[in-house]
């Protein structure tokens, strides 16, 4: 007969730098149930929209998350632009695409490093973050910031990339591609790594659909949904297909993310080849009135920006549904029946961003 015990997990945990608390109900070494508890870092950024006007709020939106800061700013801007009926210049659309994909590479590299750290492969962790450093340098070179880029504004972009810069970036990207291929071999082919990832934390296609999972977590279970296909920024002109895997375990999620890095490099190459000349911003006149729900594909999955404006310079409501919020129920499902020792890796494979979740 097995005894049940409850083990508290987090909010401070060596593997997770994010403040999530779980009450794990264990039966011997197996997890039977997990009850999440969040709310340690609620900052009330949605409430701040009452104090900042709709153009200033871009700076707040960027600060929702440190990893997807570009996409948060862009998603908010696209939502307001849609309400106001602003058509941004084509060059700005391409710039948004390029910076978006750079963010995706940087986020996935960060995740790969954290995953390596979670199963105790410290030098692999260092290698991943070393590659990521090049992307951060590219960001600093092109936008002036390493974490908060401040290049989005309503009506376009605040900075431009010239031809020389893009050319230089293509060379750096080739280097990144070659280096990622080397570490991908370890992530996907190493026996020790495989024994930690394969067959752990299955999520079936049906479960992923029912529990509303998003992003690579969902695509690793075989659902080919990618909001970039909705056609914001310059994605309609770019040729790509959602990366999926049919397996649905931790290994599949790692595989999907690694393939997405290569896909992002390919998208940046296509965008840099097609980028048209011209202005990067249009002047904004008038005030927004109306509501819109903008869906953006972030590195972690689908993010939703609901903006409701009332014709004044202060918005009525901004609501951000971040990908981790949608992935929590799926994560709880995969935790059921897993080994206690696998819990940190399982939580990590949804790429949790709790401060995003609580905003």
């Amino acid at each position: 007969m097995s005894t049940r015990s409850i083990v508290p997990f987090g909010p401070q945990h060596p593997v997770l730098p994010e403040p999530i608390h779980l009450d794990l109900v264990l039966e011997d070494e197996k997890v039977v149930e997990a009850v999440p508890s969040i709310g340690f870092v609620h900052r009330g950024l949605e409430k701040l929209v009452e104090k900042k006007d709709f153009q200033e709020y871009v700076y707040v939106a960027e600060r929702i998350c440190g990893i997807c800061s570009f996409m948060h700013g862009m998603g908010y801007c696209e939502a307001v632009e849609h309400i106001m009926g602003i058509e941004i210049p084509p060059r700005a659309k391409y710039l948004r695409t390029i910076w978006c994909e750079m963010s995706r590479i940087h986020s996935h590299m960060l995740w790969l490093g954290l995953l390596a750290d979670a199963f105790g492969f410290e030098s692999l962790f260092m290698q991943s973050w070393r590659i990521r450093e090049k992307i951060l340098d590219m960001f600093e070179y092109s936008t002036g910031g390493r974490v908060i880029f401040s290049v989005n504004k309503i009506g376009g972009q605040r900075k431009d990339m010239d031809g020389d810069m893009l050319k230089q970036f293509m060379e750096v990207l080739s280097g990144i591609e070659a280096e990622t291929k080397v570490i991908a071999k370890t992530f996907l082919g190493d026996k020790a790594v495989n024994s930690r990832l394969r067959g752990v934390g299955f999520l079936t296609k049906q479960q992923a659909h029912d529990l509303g999972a998003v992003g690579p977590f969902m695509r690793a279970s075989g659902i080919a949904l990618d909001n970039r296909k909705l056609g914001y920024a310059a994605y309609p002109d770019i040729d790509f297909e959602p990366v999926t895997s049919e397996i649905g375990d931790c290994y599949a999620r790692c595989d999907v993310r690694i393939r997405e890095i290569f896909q992002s490099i390919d998208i940046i190459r296509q965008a840099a080849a097609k980028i048209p000349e011209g202005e990067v911003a249009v002047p904004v006149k008038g005030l927004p009135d109306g509501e819109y729900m903008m869906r953006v594909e972030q590195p972690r999955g689908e993010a939703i920006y609901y903006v409701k404006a009332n014709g004044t310079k202060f918005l009525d409501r901004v609501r951000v549904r971040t990908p981790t919020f949608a992935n929590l129920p799926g994560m709880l499902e995969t935790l059921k029946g897993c080994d206690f020792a696998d819990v940190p890796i399982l939580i990590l494979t949804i790429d949790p961003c709790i401060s995003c979740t609580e905003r």
Partner: protein
Amino acid sequence: MGFMNFTKTVITNLFHKPVTTAYPFEPEAYPERTRGKVGIAIEQCIFCGMCGRKCPTGAIRVDRAEKRWTIERFGCIQCGSCVENCPKKCLFMMQNYPQPAADKYEESFVQPPAPATEEAPKKEETKGKVD
């Protein structure tokens, strides 16, 4: 699946010079666009107050009567909004970051009274807590 996948990386690392730099002994080279901190060419300032109104955090105060331009260094988020909106283009972004400090402090710049003198602008620094 294979063994010894990482050996190549390990050997490359062994015979490779370090990728890190010896900061702070070696100065860090910032790219041109780095948003470090806001600087002002105070002799050109017309004290219109546009930077203060456009600052999303309200870190800039402009006193027209005293001809004083004040910034809270740790209130500033380095977004560059003031630099873009300055009508005289006398604000600029410097590449070096504000130095860490134990207290929040304000930095003030006062325009010298006679514009004919060629003295360097007087820099006044007031340290203290900002509530």
